[in-house]
């Protein structure tokens, strides 16, 4: 299978303010969020980054989306380096995270057109794609309603659809089902599987074991910014369920601190 994402020895540190030091109960001014992380993903697979809060999952995805730069190391996204060619990387990926929001004032229709234009999608392609995605997610009925007036679930669907306006081959979702009701969560989960069927590569971060078990082909478990285990889901869960595998590794790393 063709490797479309290769992350190599990526490290990211943040400088802590005195207030943050106090909150984190540490004397160190530097927090290493991601520490020499490496992994890869192939075309047409769903790769899951599993870890507790503060493990470095979101920081890793933010680096892949070129929102922040790694201190050292690099990642190559479909042939483009996140360090040297960030603009190219942005054109190749779709990124969905709760950190990125849509302007409440506009309608889903306007936002889809706007982001398509920014990605240079031709008008005829855009209209066809918009019609398909809006229908797939039931947005067509709300296409002309301002985002401010949509339900939380519908807003999440619009965000998802807008992030896919340019039909990217690599899609990065940070906690894709977080805060969603069961119906919307199911729609999103089914869509992830559909993307895989269409040959797209999906990278997700989550702490929900069931989501990983349901959709992922390969998994990387991150604890304290380090990749502890990385392999196919079937390999990792050969002898015990994923949850037990995770907690065995967690105890090994952190002792009995649960």
């Amino acid at each position, binding site marked *: 299978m063709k490797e479309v994402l290769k992350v190599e020895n990526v490290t990211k540190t*943040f400088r802590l303010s005195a207030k943050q030091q106090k909150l984190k109960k540490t004397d160190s001014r530097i927090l290493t969020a991601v520490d020499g992380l490496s992994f890869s993903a192939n075309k047409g697979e769903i790769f899951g980054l599993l870890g507790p809060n503060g493990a470095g999952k979101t920081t890793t995805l*933010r680096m892949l*989306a*070129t*929102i*922040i*730069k790694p201190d050292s190391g690099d990642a190559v996204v479909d042939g483009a380096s996140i360090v040297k060619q960030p*603009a*190219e990387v*942005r*054109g190749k990926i779709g*990124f969905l995270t709760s*950190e*990125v*929001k*849509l*302007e*409440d*004032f*506009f309608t889903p229709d*306007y936002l889809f057109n*706007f*982001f398509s*234009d*920014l*990605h*240079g999608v031709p008008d005829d392609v855009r209209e066809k794609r918009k019609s398909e995605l809006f229908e797939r997610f039931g947005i067509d009925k709300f296409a002309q309603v301002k985002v401010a007036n949509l339900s939380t679930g519908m807003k999440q669907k619009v965000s998802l659809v*807008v992030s896919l306006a340019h039909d990217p081959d690599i899609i990065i979702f940070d906690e894709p089902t977080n805060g969603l009701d069961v119906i919307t969560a199911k729609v999103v989960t089914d869509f992830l599987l559909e993307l895989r069927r269409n040959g797209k590569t999906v990278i997700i971060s989550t702490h929900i074991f069931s989501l990983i078990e349901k959709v992922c082909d390969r998994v990387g478990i991150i604890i304290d910014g380090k990749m502890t285990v990385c392999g196919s889901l079937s390999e990792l869960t050969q002898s015990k369920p994923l949850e037990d595998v995770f907690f065995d590794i967690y105890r090994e790393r952190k002792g009995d601190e649960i």
Partner: protein
Amino acid sequence: MKLGAFTVFKKEIARFFGDKRLLFTSVIMPGLLIYLIYSVMGNSLNSMMSDQTSSFKAAAVDIPQSVASQLEKQGFEIENIELSEVDRAKEQIEDGDLSLCVVFPDGFENVMSEYAGGSKTDSAPNVKIYFDSADINSSHAYSVTVAMLDELEKSVSNVFDINNASQDDGYDVASEEDAAGAMLSMILPMLITVLLYSSCVALAPESIAGEKERGTLAALLITPVPRSQIILGKVLALSVMALLGGLSSFLGTFMSLPSLMQGMGDELGSISANVYGPVDYVCLIVLILTTVLLLITVISIISTLAKSVKEAGTMVLPLMLVVMLVSFMTMYQTETRTEFYWYLIPIYNTIESMAKIFSFSLDPVCIAVTAAANIVYSALGIFILTKLFNNEKVMFNS
């Protein structure tokens, strides 16, 4: 591929014109409010001036007939009282029942003539006027009385005149246009600059710091459009919006100016925009455009550094003080600067150049230096903004 800057520009404009409340508060309301406030101010001042001829009630001791008749012509109703009644009159003044009380020395006219003729050389006769400075009517009555007595004193001891009104030989060589220009060049550059600044500050923090705060700017930053284009689109759109706001304020000011000037008792009530030619207006537009561009860029830099709209509002305060200070400083400047390096100083250059236009001494070199300086500073600002937009610590607070 469509130009990213143009797409961002269109989005910002669509947001602005689509939001009726924003459109009203930033374009229609400033001009309307300025027009209403200045017109009301002008009318109030005007009616105050005409009120000055309204009736005053005065008590007088030993008032000469000639003085009494002069005062009566000025709207005074005079009651002759004895010296012993002065204390009662003072109480009446305090209660507002009397405008003032004037006490003349006994035989005032004779004493005055003797003093003026030099036959009497001890201290000059003293006219006492009791009034209440806290009362508007009493103050006016006092001013009118003093002015009238000053005239009387001059007429008695007149040795020479200066610009005798009865022999007006066109002493002031300035034309009405020049006089209007001098007044406008003092007021309008300051007003226009402050109004443009107000427009810019009402829009830029919301568009930059607001989007950053709401997380909608991040959605733009994860597209392949270069950051410089995103900034260019935003800055140009904000400049257009600020110009509309500034134009509205300018129109409000200009339309209310005649009534304000009339209210100030000036002959400038008949000021017309026709006194300036097309070249003046073109130069004015160039100055306004480049100044707005510069102001928007600077406020955008400050807004980018802020974490929220509220913080941006606080951070732009020192800039506002600088703009106000420079504006007021130039208002009272006695000499015009001709050396080109003065026109490299932002804001100051705009006000100076505008003052030259309004005073009919348009200097193309100064205008060109000002416009070029503003454009260069704006380009430098956009370069700084691009650096800031590429800084993850600034943009994502990481």
